[in-house]
């Protein structure tokens, strides 16, 4: 450990400090500041959260071009960190904006909810920027524990409580597996530094069996968070049972963070050194197939989105597997695209559940195109992006992933990828179909201006960056540039 790196550079920690400060502020303010009504209190808190995340975002941009390794090698604020921090901050801000409506309907206290959301976000940021196994583990726990609670936030609903409990039990087990893997790796590499670990992976000659075992266990722990098959069993129940904004936050934020760490630990030569490519290829293939095929059979749209999110994790694994700069950058791009599209699609579901139901079926979407054209347009854009049709970010991301896979010689996986995309057509198209071609009745919540603004902005981003992807692509390429 060189002494220069030991300096405590608080500027590098600024975004994280802002988020943690915001979490404390929200909890305290909620308890002590009197507000005229519960709903205005909730709106006020949501606003505070968004302002806080905006500040954190500004702080993140301040760090652009100031790559540094600080706190004794613990904290890596490089471009990879900044890319994924931006993604999770966007996920957090969108979650805050869509939560307001949900909270108002369920008469939940805003302080605790938003406090947990911000704490989880702080965990993600630590997780993403960890340069050391210790911080990595702390970040993972700080990210996960608040989400266990949030998943059960709808205390009166049995499904929500079940979701929270299920996620807690299985999540803890996965964390244990990860921890076990990391300790084996530490025993082999003799360092807790991730840089050291990557260097060890790339040494000549065959790795000892316990190193491979450690690597595979660590991978398994991370793949659990991603929701890859066969570690996906929790996903549908938890996604469906949890409050919809929390589901969106999980699907987007947790997945993105886990991929960031997968890149940090395993990207490129490190994965090749571990000689588990075939295993990951198999997992990716299964993930794409199971996610997309299972989604076909769902009647609940939320559950369909949950299964399809498994499929999307499979596509992203292709990029990681390719191990090239292009593939890894594609993962970054896809994470950004998926975060945005997740909020648009789940946001629409929140609007639809005006009578408090958690489960929205295809039938509830009937005639939305004539009842609420704007909402239907947003949902249509989201579905097109999920299918991967141009001109959306989903297309650019998928093409980039498949391209990287082909380039790396994984042609059969790319073909499987497009075939499963073809399967996904059936259920995503069904959403578009019932919205525009069927007639139907049903109440839809009047969306607040902030909500509509956020959703519209997100859908516009899908189209704009789908047509002109180069700023985001450039960002993603620079982000992974540190490893290639």
């Amino acid at each position, binding site marked *: 450990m060189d002494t220069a790196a030991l300096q405590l550079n608080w500027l590098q920690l600024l975004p994280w400090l802002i988020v943690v400060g915001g979490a404390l502020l929200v909890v305290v303010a909620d308890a002590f500041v009197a507000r005229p009504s519960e709903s205005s209190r909730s709106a006020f808190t949501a606003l505070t959260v968004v302002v806080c995340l905006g500040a954190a975002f500004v702080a993140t941009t301040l760090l652009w071009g100031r790559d540094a390794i600080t706190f004794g090698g613990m904290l890596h604020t490089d471009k990879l960190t900044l890319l994924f921090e931006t993604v999770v901050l966007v996920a957090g801000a969108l979650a805050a904006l869509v939560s307001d409506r949900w909270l108002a309907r369920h008469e939940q206290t805003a302080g605790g909810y938003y406090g947990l959301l911000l704490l989880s976000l702080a965990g993600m940021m630590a997780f993403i920027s960890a340069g050391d196994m210790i911080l990595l583990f702390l970040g993972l726990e700080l990210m996960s524990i608040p989400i266990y609670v949030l998943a059960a936030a709808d205390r009166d609903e049995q499904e929500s409580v079940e979701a929270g409990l299920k996620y807690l039990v299985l999540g803890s087990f996965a964390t244990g597996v990860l921890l076990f893997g990391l300790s084996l790796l530490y025993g082999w590499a003799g360092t807790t530094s991730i840089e050291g670990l990557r260097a060890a992976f790339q040494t000549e000659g065959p790795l000892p069996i316990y190193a491979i075992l450690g690597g595979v266990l660590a991978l398994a722990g991370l793949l659990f968070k991603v929701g890859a098959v066969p570690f996906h069993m929790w996903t549908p129940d938890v996604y469906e049972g949890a409050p919809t904004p929390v589901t969106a936050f999980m699907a987007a934020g947790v997945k993105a963070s886990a991929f960031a760490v997968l890149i940090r630990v395993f990207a490129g030569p490190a994965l090749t050194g571990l000689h588990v490519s075939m295993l990951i290829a198999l997992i990716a293939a299964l993930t794409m197939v199971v996610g997309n095929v299972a989604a076909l059979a769902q009647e609940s749209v939320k559950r369909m989105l949950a299964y399809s999110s498994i499929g999307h994790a499979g596509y992203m694994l292709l990029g990681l597997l390719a191990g090239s700069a292009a593939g890894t950058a594609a993962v970054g791009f896809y994470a950004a695209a998926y975060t945005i599209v997740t909020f648009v699609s789940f946001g629409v579901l929140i609007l639809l559940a005006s009578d408090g139901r958690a489960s929205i079926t295809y039938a509830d979407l009937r005639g939305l195109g004539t009842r609420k054209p704007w909402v239907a347009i947003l949902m249509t854009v989201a579905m097109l992006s999920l299918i991967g049709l141009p001109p959306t970010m989903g297309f650019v991301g998928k*093409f980039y992933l*498949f391209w990287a896979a082909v380039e790396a010689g994984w*042609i059969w996986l790319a073909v499987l990828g497009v075939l499963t995309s073809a399967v996904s057509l059936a259920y995503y*198209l069904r959403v578009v*179909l019932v919205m525009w*071609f069927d007639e139907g009745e049903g109440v839809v919540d009047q969306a607040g201006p902030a909500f509509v603004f956020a959703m519209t902005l997100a859908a516009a981003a899908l189209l704009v960056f789908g047509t002109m992807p180069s700023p985001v692509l450039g960002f993603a390429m620079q982000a992974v540039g540190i490893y290639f």
Partner: protein
Amino acid sequence: MSILSLLVFLPLLGALLLLLFPKERPDLYKAFSLGVLLVEFAISVPLYFQYKAAGFEGFIAEESLTWIPQWGVGYTVGVDGISLVLVLLTTFLGPVVALGAFSAITKRHREFWFHILLLHTAMIGTFVATNLLLFFVFWELMLVPMFFLIGIWGGEQRIMATVKFFIYTAVGSLLMLVGIAYLGAEHAVQTGAWSFAFTDLMGLSLVTSMQLLLFGAFALAFAIKVPMWPVHTWLPDAHTEAPTAGSVILAGVLLKMGVYGFVRLAMPLFPDAVHAATPLFIVLAVIGIVYGALVAMVQPDMKRLVAFSSVSHLGFCMLGLFALNQQGMAGGILQGLNHGISTGALFLLVGVVYERTHNRAIAHYGGIAKLTPIYATIFLIVTLSSVGLPGTNGFVGEFLILLGAFRHGYGTWAAGGSFWNLAVVGIACTGVIFGAVYMLWLVQRVFFGPVTNPSLAEKDGHGLTDLTPREVLVFAPILLAIFWVGFYPKTLLDPLEKPVAALVQRVQDDHSNPSTLAVLDDAQAHEGREVHH
């Protein structure tokens, strides 16, 4: 901004402006959209003269802007003779379709015109793109408005039809996407730089086995779009269920994209594979010709009859392309244009009576020439052009195709190939006869003889009335085009000549990988030489 970019993005701009229009003003939407499409036509015509000034050679109106520098792909557009005539077909049919749809659409007006305009952006974009990625973006973009056009304004089975159309086309294109990715990656391997430009990718040297796989991926996407037998099954449903405007655009332009895809991409990119696949594609094309004609003959529904006739006609186009010589290929492309004009007109004509009676069954009509003389005259002219009567456009295309196909078949046979090569072209000729049979029989049953359905003759407003002046205006440019191309095909053959010659040259001679020459049997090599001298 070049004239091509203007052509591509003007309809998109129009579609977006349409969203700002006041509510419930269908007349305003119609007039505005028609105006946009007329302007499109007006700015596309000078392109022809610009190309003429360039000696009907190379690409014109090229534009290249930075788009995604990270992938080495720009926004690059340009037209040569082949894409030019297709762009002109699109801009020509645009106002005709719009004018024809004035009274047919009765609900959700603003959305309808939005999708029509968006569709034009996608179609023109597909024809003018000069790199694969841009091409694919427009190619896929086209699906979305068409999906809505059929699904919202279509007939009773519209949802089944539109889903079938969408899934067929999208799934077909997905494997092409992997092919595109492979070509991009291969270009990086071979030259060190990423590129998707058509011209750059043609410089790649690919082994025959890889060419065959890639050709398969591309050809599947295009064959579905054409559609070739046996992947044509989406077409009868989509054409029949679509609203008239949708059917006309489907038949007129979208099917031509399949033909265009073969000519622009699948054939020049993988010349060796084309040689290997030619016998198969000729057989599929001929099956399509005969099968489409026979099935069309027994249809009780006029629109479905016209839809199946498309399968037969497009079979001719493909037969011409895979003759791999100047006459056949030029004829194939020309016949594509003719089909766009004639079959487009037939769909419009069926739409006219459907709008009045809401019935498309042939048995519902009979002897209506007495009631609607103008309509009957136009219908007959269009029918004759579709059948290929000399003096109409259809004759020129069919003649060139059969000439090319015979030269190919005879050349292969004379060089020691099987007699089957020639016989199959003979079978294709029966398609011309069958074509005359089903079309003329249709005309006879619908128009001639006594009026079989008295309700049609009622004068109280429920009967069948002749064309309105607006409808005559719709058909006037089509009739003009039918005779113009029939008597003076040079207008369209001139721009096609040199690009097609270059393509024939490429397919016949260019084998970027010398080792693949062995794949060519002597017969085909011989036939290649013969054509050139």
